[in-house]
């Protein structure tokens, strides 16, 4: 495998940090849901579950941004024909996806900083869980973007991809235990939900922040999903069609 690092960096930069200026309103829009839920959860639990909504809100935000990036790749494939343009170069599907993942992560940086500041004000942050949280953010970005990219690769019209993205967004950010303690649901349900990368990510965050018991099994699951979903995405990428 001969990755095109130059392209990955350029694609990441142009769809990431460089895009913040022109698309900052999306950053705010994507923060609306997790911050609203933070508010609602805080009110309903008289502040008790607020740290949960902080831990999960970060995951939720990363997931929303990743889904949006997968949607962008769909637009690149169907409307802009950018994917077709790139196929005829020596840049491969992995370069292309890694570029978008890097962009998605870069693009999330302002929101990450906001969450870290909130975490800090609630004394939830330590150097250890900061590092681990960043690792979780990276993994959940790769896993979610791959999963959603794979699903959207079967879509023939951008119109449809919006509906699917909206549905996946709710499933991944609200149903998964991002805004409630993962111990509230039966283990069996938790393991079903674990196919959504946001589930292991949120469980890990709750463990890291000392809110619930740490589950290293979830780290294994998140790592496995990252690899498996990336692998699937690589093969359904419609790179050179039949």
């Amino acid at each position, binding site marked *: 495998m001969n990755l*095109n690092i130059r*392209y990955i960096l*350029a694609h990441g930069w142009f769809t990431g940090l460089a895009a913040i200026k022109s698309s900052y309103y999306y950053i705010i829009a994507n923060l609306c849901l997790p911050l609203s839920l933070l508010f609602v959860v805080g009110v309903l639990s008289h502040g008790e579950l607020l740290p949960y909504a902080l831990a999960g809100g970060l995951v939720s935000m990363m997931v929303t941004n990743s889904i949006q990036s997968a949607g962008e790749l769909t637009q690149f494939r169907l409307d802009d024909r*950018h994917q077709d*343009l790139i196929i005829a170069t020596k840049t491969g599907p992995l370069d292309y996806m890694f570029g978008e993942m890097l962009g998605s992560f870069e693009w999330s940086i302002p929101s990450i900083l906001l969450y870290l500041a909130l975490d800090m004000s609630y004394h939830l942050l330590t150097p250890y869980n900061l590092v681990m949280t960043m690792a979780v953010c990276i993994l959940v970005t790769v896993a979610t973007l791959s999963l959603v990219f794979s699903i959207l690769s079967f879509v023939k019209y951008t119109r449809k991809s919006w509906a699917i993205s909206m549905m996946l967004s709710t499933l991944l950010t609200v149903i998964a235990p991002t805004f409630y303690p993962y111990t509230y649901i039966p283990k069996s349900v938790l393991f079903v939900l674990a196919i959504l990368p946001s589930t292991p990510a949120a469980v890990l965050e709750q463990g890291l922040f000392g809110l619930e018991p740490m589950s290293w099994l979830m780290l294994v699951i998140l790592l496995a999903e990252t690899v498996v979903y990336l692998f699937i995405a690589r093969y359904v990428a419609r790179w050179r069609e*039949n």
Partner: protein
Amino acid sequence: MIEARAITKRYKDGTLALDGVNFTLNKKTTSIIGRNGAGKTTLLRILSTQLLPTSGTASINGLDVVKAAQDVRNIIVSIPQESKPINYLSPLDNVVLYLSARRMRMSEAKEAAEKAIKTVGLWKVREKISDELSGGMKRKIFVAMAIASKSDVVFLDEPTTGLDPLSRIEVWSAIKAIKGQVILTTHYMEEAQALSDDVLMMDKGKILSQGKVGDLLKPFKGKVRVESTKKKSHSYKVGNTYISYIGKNEAEASVMVGDIIKPITLDDLFIKRGVELEY
């Protein structure tokens, strides 16, 4: 040089888009013309390694488009039909991103992009986001990609569709600035005439004819096109108009009220062949 031998393409849904296509392209610029659905895009996508043929072989400068796809990708640029620049990026950034896909160094890419943006006349808007550009300016971004790549072979699928006549002429001069061999598709016969002396005419997945514009128009020598609302002998019906090809003098002598006399262009080849095939 591009060679295709018995290229056939059947899509998964059963559509036969290319039916045993053979040709050699070795002129500086070749235009591929043909009606909607003739198979032009399918052919270009196969030649530029985006789509696999069902059978047959094709090569670019001796490199097989299936077996040596990676090597082919080194020497080609392919601009898809209806491709749009990434709308929140400037023309310059769009070109730089494309060049990085071609594994060009960032500093080199910036320089090449700036030069090409100048060549196609986008210098003034180089920093604007593409959303704010006109349709012609957007198309020129892609021509700039082709110029900056300095590749051997460039495929342009309908580079001027939807542009106003002036923008079209501007894009033409940008296309003329491309150094390598150019293969383009078009629905504008004057474009094929202006840009290329080699024309490949396709219909229903087959090549109907290939040659210089002058050669292809030989059957019309000394004739003009007469468009009439009334049926005449040996006329082709296109919509509600009857088109006939007759000698210049004869046409002037027999012209009726409402008839329009026009000089012959590649359109006529198209009308003649297209209509023949239709009925």
